[in-house]
């Protein structure tokens, strides 16, 4: 019996994972509370803003945590491990989409997988800078945009991104600066906005 009850909010992700592996429901709730929102945003950005698909992916990644918590490598930080799993899930999805595209039988290839239920975009529709920014990110090739997104939208450090994508710190920096230069040139018209 514990003398002092654990305060889940103060526990580290790694210790919460240990508790989850022992069947602690409250530890799982805490982990879900910490990462479900950021992961949903990440999946939405990576999966063509398809909210339904992103929801399914969030479910799947947490289902993995429930079913096989031992998959977590304690040598890595939980956040890094979680995002690397999410990144691999997205890669698999890209492959699936690629196969479907190649085997499509007359369906419109430009079918937009948009989330019509979400009003996130409509809320910022009047923000031209944001629209342009999003568009520029979309135009970037995937390896550059994903590094930029992980750094600026998900708040991960260069070291963490390197760990997630299994590349060197130098490569992360290089991709990050390339993406930044590209964005800077495409958003040049919004200099007053940038300089506010």
């Amino acid at each position: 019996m514990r003398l002092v009850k654990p305060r889940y909010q103060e526990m580290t992700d790694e210790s919460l994972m240990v508790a989850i592996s022992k069947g602690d429901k409250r530890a799982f709730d805490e982990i879900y509370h910490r990462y479900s929102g950021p992961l949903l945003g990440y999946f939405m950005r990576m999966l063509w803003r398809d909210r339904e698909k992103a929801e399914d992916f969030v479910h799947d990644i947490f289902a993995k945590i429930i079913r096989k918590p031992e998959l977590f490598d304690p040598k890595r930080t939980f956040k890094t491990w979680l995002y690397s799993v999410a990144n691999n899930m997205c890669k698999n999805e890209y492959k699936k989409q690629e196969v479907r595209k190649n085997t499509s039988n007359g369906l419109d290839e430009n079918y937009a997988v948009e989330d019509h239920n979400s009003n996130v975009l409509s809320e910022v529709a009047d923000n031209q800078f944001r629209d342009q920014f999003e568009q520029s990110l979309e135009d970037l090739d995937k390896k550059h945009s994903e590094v930029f997104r992980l750094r600026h939208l998900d708040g991960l450090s260069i070291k963490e991104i390197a760990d997630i994508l299994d590349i060197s710190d130098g490569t992360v920096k290089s991709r990050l600066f390339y993406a930044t230069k590209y964005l800077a040139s495409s958003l040049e018209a919004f200099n007053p906005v940038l300089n506010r």
Partner: protein
Amino acid sequence: MKKDLIDIIMEKEFHALSQAEREELASYCSNEDEYNQMRDVFIGVEQMTWDHPQPKAETKQRLDDLFDSTYPKAAPVWYNSVLAVVVPNEKPLHRQPLAQIAAVALIAFLTIPFFGSDSEITEKPAASQQLAQVEKPATTPSSDVKADPENEVKNEEPIVEEDPITRSNDVPVLVASAEPMPGAPSVGATSAGSSGHPDGVFIAVSQPASEAPEMFDLLTATF
């Protein structure tokens, strides 16, 4: 936590960069204009508020169901409900009823002996009388043994054994000897001739050497 290059760019103007930082940035931006352009992008992105959408409640519900099926709880039995009241998991140890009851019981156990100390003193003599009554029948000779003539000699001896003086100081030791010892004390001792024992056994009660110095001298000379 060590700041990475992006944090440095967002925090510092170009002229404020150290030589080491400039060298590190050299491969990414060659001049001040490029640096400022990049800095503007980073700051602009940082200032943008990103909505973090929350997953639907159904997603959480499905995960809760999955968790419950993966880690099934123990079947509810009657003592589980009792334990839930007496040892609730949500409360810390010092607030659990079982711990509180145990603490009260411990305090009672430690304090009650101090309240009953007077009555114990008055009861002591009665207890010692009872002890004496229990001991007496063991020392008094039984009527069954009287019929044996050999035991008659031994029956005379308990008088010595019951002497309160010798009993209180040292336990008397029966010493068997073929002849009476010359320096042996005469108290309670009977010679073989006077006792009329057929084997000529001399029975004497020894005393501590400190009470009979001549006995001590004899022992020293012998050994």
